[in-house]
């Protein structure tokens, strides 16, 4: 018991941080709430460091301490810190500022629970925890668009989560256990296996914005505060995708699930980029781009169980994606929500311009940036798992993605018509951190790879 709790220290620390931030908010000390939240998350990150390299489970196998869950902490906790800094700009001086910080920490706990799920119940718990916290965050401004977006998000989430819970009862009924490791036996009863898999794909697919469960994504991103969009595009998504990897790890490779995931990958990548191609609103464009990027994660998930590159590629791409996507959102936070706002950015604020170009090219997957290393390993994993055609489709989509991201880059270097307002400090710090991370992950992938790679089966 003590050992189990000790291994969960980072999660417990984040939870306590959320409570502490809430207490500070009750005393109307929002600055202290922010400081507490940031400090707590950094402490939790520090507490996760010693866990690197572990591969064990706690509480009877229901929660896993493995490469996926440990690296989820190391990636998502700093990402939450950056989101907090972005949020500070959005909600400063509003009535319940501190609750935002507290809710962000709570949603992160949910994402961490998802990433380490070893039991079907944790899938439900994590989905609900992140869901409930983020509905409130999207609705926070209280404006009409925000409320509408939160409502859509809420209805969509309720239905998909209900479907997931319903389907999971089949797995439970067939296996007599909720542990994910026991799900391999369900194969004897094909009906239950299929329903259960569909349920998980629906429930986690909505959270990770996989097509066709993505409809809430652009609306929620656009309606809510920009910092919440940035957060939603990274933390809950990575948590859900890691959870999906945890689920399929227990399933036999020959039972046909890789084909289902591969199909979803093609749909998600292609639809995401095609839709992004016609957006004029940068936030919607980034929303569709984040949908498409989820599809790339699926290349690694397809290979889970059949390629030793699968888990390292997912983890590395998660780190790369977190850095570059948060960076792009941070630049958007200082610039504006429409494409026209980016006109001349590269000339009036050259450093911001360079950073944005680096983020977008990294999202395309141009070497030597972080996105390239991540995608490269994902492609290798897919080919290794005999899904060469999927890698070809992904590569074709990378070309399409270039057209998408150049829609932002090209106007940046056209002559500017209007002067841009002076950027505020925090998004600048976030962009700078993300910039450094994007370059470092690309050039020094070794240090990140040594961890997850050492654990690869």
């Amino acid at each position, binding site marked *: 018991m003590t050992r189990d709790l000790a291994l969960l220290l980072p999660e417990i620390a984040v939870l306590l941080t959320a409570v502490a931030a809430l207490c500070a908010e009750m005393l109307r000390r929002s600055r202290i709430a922010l400081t507490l939240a940031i400090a707590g998350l950094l402490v939790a990150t520090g507490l996760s460091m010693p866990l690197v390299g572990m591969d064990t489970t706690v509480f009877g196998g229901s929660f896993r301490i493995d490469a996926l869950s440990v690296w989820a902490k190391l990636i998502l906790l700093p990402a939450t810190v950056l989101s907090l800094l972005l949020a500070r700009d959005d909600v400063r001086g509003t009535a319940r500022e501190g609750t935002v910080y507290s809710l962000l920490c709570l949603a992160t706990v949910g994402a961490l629970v998802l990433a380490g799920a070893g039991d079907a119940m944790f899938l439900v718990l994590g989905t609900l925890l992140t869901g409930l916290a983020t509905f409130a965050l999207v609705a926070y401004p209280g404006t009409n668009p925000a409320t509408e977006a939160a409502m859509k998000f809420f209805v969509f989430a309720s239905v998909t989560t209900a479907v997931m819970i319903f389907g999971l009862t089949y797995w439970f009924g067939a296996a007599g256990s909720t542990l994910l490791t026991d799900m391999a036996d369900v194969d004897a009863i094909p009906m239950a296996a299929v329903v259960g898999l569909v349920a998980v794909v629906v429930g986690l697919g909505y959270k990770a914005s996989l097509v066709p469960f993505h409809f809430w994504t652009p609306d929620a991103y656009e309606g809510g505060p920009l910092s919440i969009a940035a957060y939603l595009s990274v933390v809950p998504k990575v948590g859900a995708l890691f959870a999906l990897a945890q689920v399929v790890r227990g399933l036999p490779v020959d039972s046909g699930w890789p084909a289902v995931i591969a199909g979803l990958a093609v749909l998600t990548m292609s639809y995401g980029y095609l839709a992004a191609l016609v957006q004029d609103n940068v936030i919607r464009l980034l929303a569709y781009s984040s949908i498409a990027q989820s599809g790339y994660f699926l290349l690694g998930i397809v290979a889970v169980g059949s390629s030793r*590159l699968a888990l390292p590629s997912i983890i590395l791409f998660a780190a790369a994606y977190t850095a570059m996507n948060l960076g792009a959102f941070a630049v958007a936070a200082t610039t504006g929500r429409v494409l026209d706002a980016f006109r001349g950015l590269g000339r009036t604020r*050259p450093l911001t311009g360079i950073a944005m170009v680096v983020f977008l*090219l990294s999202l*395309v997957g*141009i*070497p*030597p940036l972080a996105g*390239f290393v991540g995608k*490269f*390993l994902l*492609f*290798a994993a897919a*080919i*290794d798992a005999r899904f*060469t055609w999927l*890698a*070809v489709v992904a*590569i*074709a989509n*990378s*070309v399409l993605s*270039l*057209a998408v991201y*150049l829609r932002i880059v*090209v106007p940046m*270097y*056209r002559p500017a018509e209007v002067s841009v307002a002076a950027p505020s400090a925090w998004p600048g710090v976030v962009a700078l951190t993300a910039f450094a991370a994007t370059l470092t992950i690309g050039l020094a*992938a*070794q240090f990140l*790879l*040594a961890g997850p*790679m*050492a654990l690869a089966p």
Partner: protein
Amino acid sequence: MPMLPLVTITLFLPLAGAVLILAMPRPTARRMHGIGIATAALTLAGAVAMWVRGVSDAGFAQLEELEWIPVIGAAYRVGVDGISLPLVLLSAVLFLLAFIFTSSLRERPRSYVVLALLLETAAIGTFTALDAILFYVFFEVSLVSMYFMIAGWGHEDRQGAALMFFLYTLLGSLPLLLAILGLYLGSPEPSFDMRAWIADPPLDGAAAMWALVAMLITFAVKIPAVPLHTWLPAAHVQAPTVGSVILAGIMLKFGTYGLVRFALQMTPDAFRDAGLVILALGVVSALYGAFAALAQTDLKRLVAYTSINHMGYVIVGVAVAALAVDPAVRAVALDGAVLQMVSHGLVTGALFFLVGMIQDRAHSREMGEFGGLLNTVPLLGWSFVLTAFASLGLPGLAHFPAEFQIFLATLWTVPAAAVVVLGIAVIAGTYVKAIRETFLGEARDRWQSMPDMSLREVLTAAPLLVLTVAIGVAPSWLLDIIHRTTSALALQ
């Protein structure tokens, strides 16, 4: 005492120069160009020192290795052989001249010099990389830098042309990534070491053929070979002069270099099986490029199409080398192909510089608008005439020894393909027409006050003309180095 890591120093000197310029608080344009020229000169010194160290008879020389991502077998590995060393030297020369030529630029000089220096590192890196991931990284970085160079400093319709260039070559380079992954997963132990892939090609049968097809798509776009060439004239017409010089002089060689290094050396059996198809591709490219050049009235487009023609000869040379049974014939064909790359870099680089000089003065490149320029600007005129003669393959100038060896090997191996010689006649006609319309005849009044070459321009063009003559008259100093590698290639 450990040897000085010359390759690494030469490779990263331009990058260091770029960082230096970025770190300076408020540099003047003069100082930035000065740093650019000084860095490029030091890089050239490094390349010359590499040349002095030379190559070894078997495999690669001047190897430098450093662990990078050992868990997947990627490492920083650089080195040269007789095929890459001349191209490194060519890059160093052309970049130095490009910096000299562009030293009068006052429009956002900082970004420009930094981009050009980045491009130089990318170019030298592409030729010296011996690790497939490293190669790909440099290959793509060059693409991004060139995109920004065309988009930032090009002519009227530059955005469209830059976008087309970027999309085309990115679409083209992704198949190479697939091929690299295929070679990686097929190799006995996980490694991206190109030397291992060359010594013991990891794929065979259908897998090798698919990898070859993927690589051919990539390199055919880059070379460019018909029918994947349509981006080239558009990019050249819109690119700034230096952009054109680097694009034609160096970046097209990425394609032909890759054709030899990757396609020929890593999938030799598949290449031999597909040899006749590739040969046909080369012949069609060479002839198409020649005829298309004949139809142009814009001087820059004309030079761009002659590039397609000259690169077609390189493809022919490589294909013949694959088909040849006798190692001696194979060596002759490859000698010709590699020498052709170098000659084309020098000659076409010079032609683009000279056309750029004409454009700077007249703001036009239409042949019909000129006439009698030989009287008005004799130095510029005679330089152009000499370079044009070199480009059409006149004996005694750089292209002759290269094309002669390619045609000779073709006659020995696949005599029917010698029809490609026809290209020479068409190109000769093209240049004679261009010279007559632009430089001969009645001098027009509106060009009477056109100034002749300035010192900066002479400094740019003269070294290229000297090298062109030097290779034409005595190619052995270059061929000796090339031959040491090509005569030892196993290709089994």
